């Protein structure tokens, strides 16, 4: 009998501490067969589990162009994420997925792309950024604008440095006022302000925005001012989920299942949804 609730088993190959409370796990399938069978697209998510503690939902933070590892990044907030933090290299976790829809990377070919992320919202965006960078020639100008509360809260620091060193990528990193350190060389200001200042061009452009709701709320008007079309602003919703399969009945917004019809939505799609997210 096919069991949709049965996870793959994955081994933790490497643990990377991003911030004081955010950690990235590099995972590898325990079974070669599972590894061969598995594929996903940037933006999809999965249910990760610690056996005995339960499951929790995060995006896949690595790109489909790098299949040696699956990576996830999570903040320590609840029962399962605390249990995940107690695990060591070599330990086994459960992985169910990939679920949901994905960022329209194929439709973005030949376009300018503006990535905007706040805090741990960079995780799903990182999957697309790395995906796009691995296929750099297919896309035009790339702008990355990323902000966190403080310098200590910036995730993926090694990659931020890498992107800042690339000549064909414009990377702007900012921290909230008061979150800077004496040697901070990046921008200081909230993400919407910095987006307005950086003023990425909206011609032939697609923007992917992920971050806390408050950041998205204030960034959207800026994007409209810069001339971005609603259908070209893409974001993800993070409603609470259990099954990821369109059954357990809690992630819905109106008649939309975020786990099946999302988590990726354009601003024009979001605008017609009831305010319940």
């Amino acid at each position, binding site marked *: *009998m*096919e*069991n*949709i*609730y*049965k*996870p793959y*088993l994955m*081994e933790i190959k490497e643990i990377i501490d991003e911030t004081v409370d955010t950690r990235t796990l590099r995972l590898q399938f325990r079974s070669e067969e599972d590894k061969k069978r598995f594929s996903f697209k940037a933006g999809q998510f999965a249910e990760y*589990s610690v*056996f*005995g*503690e*339960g*499951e*929790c939902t995060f995006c896949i933070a690595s790109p489909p162009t790098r299949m040696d590892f699956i990576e996830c990044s999570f*903040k320590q*907030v*609840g029962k399962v*994420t605390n249990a995940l933090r107690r695990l*060591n290299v*070599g*330990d*086994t976790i*459960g992985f169910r997925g990939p679920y949901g829809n994905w960022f329209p990377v194929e439709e973005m070919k030949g376009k300018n792309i503006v990535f905007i992320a706040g805090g741990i919202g960079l995780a799903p965006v990182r999957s697309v950024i790395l995906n796009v960078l691995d296929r750099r020639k297919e896309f035009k100008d790339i702008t990355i604008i990323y902000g966190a509360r403080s310098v200590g809260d910036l995730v993926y620091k090694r990659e931020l440095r890498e992107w800042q060193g690339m000549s064909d990528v414009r990377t702007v990193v900012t921290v909230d006022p008061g979150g800077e350190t004496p040697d901070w060389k990046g921008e200081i200001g909230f993400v919407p302000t910095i987006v307005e200042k950086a003023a990425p061009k909206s011609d032939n452009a697609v923007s992917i925005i992920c971050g*806390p*709701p408050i950041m998205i709320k204030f960034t959207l008007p800026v994007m409209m001012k810069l001339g971005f079309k609603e259908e070209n602003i893409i974001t993800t919703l*993070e*409603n*609470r989920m*259990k*099954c990821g*399969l*369109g*059954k*357990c*009945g*809690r*992630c*819905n*917004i*109106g*008649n939309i299942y975020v786990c*099946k019809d999302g988590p990726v939505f354009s601003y024009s799609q979001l605008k017609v949804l*009831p*305010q*319940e*997210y």
Partner: protein
Amino acid sequence: MEEYIISLEDLKKLADNLIKEGTDLFLPSPDNSRFVRLKKADELKLAPEARPSDISAKQAAFPKCDPVLFYKRDKSTVELKDAEPSANQVLFGLKPCDAAAFGIMNKVFNWDYKDNFFNKRLENTLVIGLACTYSDDYCFCTSVGLSPVSETGSDIFLVRLSDAQFAARAVTDKGIQFVKKYSQLFAKGDSSKSKPALESIKGPARKFDSKKVKDWLDKNFETDFFNPVGDTCLGCGQCAFVCPTCHCFDIVDEDYSYSEGRRMKNWDACQFSLFTLHASGHNPRDNQAKRYRQRVNHKFKYYIDRFKEILCTGCGRCSRGCPVTIDIGSIVTKIGNLT
């Protein structure tokens, strides 16, 4: 449709045969609180005049606690074992409002990914429905496309002709095969026997237009209509737990030793305040009015939008059992009158 006659005595014989063959028989308990296993065939009682059991029959296919896999941890490795739902059961005397629920839930459990825990149980379940002569102020099956005599969801449908005699209709292939197997107990009949009995059943007095309810819900998401019921509702979730169609669940791990445990699908309810709470502390449905709005919308709008079915059979259990006398029937009747 093939119609047969079967006496209560022969129904008991049938039950006896089934029990001896190792089939599980379930029927409403004598106090009508829940479905229980029939242990002795001569205790079989079919009561079309009884109110719907307090708890619905949905556990037959969607148990309250359902193991989906077993795990065993050993140092850093984990071994998984599949849980295999076993069911070989006959449900006796289901009200039409219970029988119809399986087909409704079937939609959500199979629209995309297939939940074989639900499917396998349903596959191995034979539903013997019973025309219902009960109705009270809470019943409203006729407003949601059903009736006290609808055969939807039944494999075999019984109509009481007298205290000792029933008409039996073989509704589905499964029902036809079943009757064939026990043909010595079923005598050939015809609809002239059951017709007067069916026609004498009046059905519930309460009536509303579910289309009008949906029309209003389509246009009124932002509304203060649900504020009074939100103030009253305790968020206890009994409505969802007694409901034949509520199918929301949680996924929970249960250790039963230091190294072993099982992963469960457990019933959950949209009326619980933690149901949609994010890890960040944000809650999209942060008050009871919003949670009640979800309940009404899920049943009378969203499920129709997605699956073309009303997620309600009008059994009235949620209202009969509500500790603060919230009556969904009167709420949707009010909504229907708003348009």
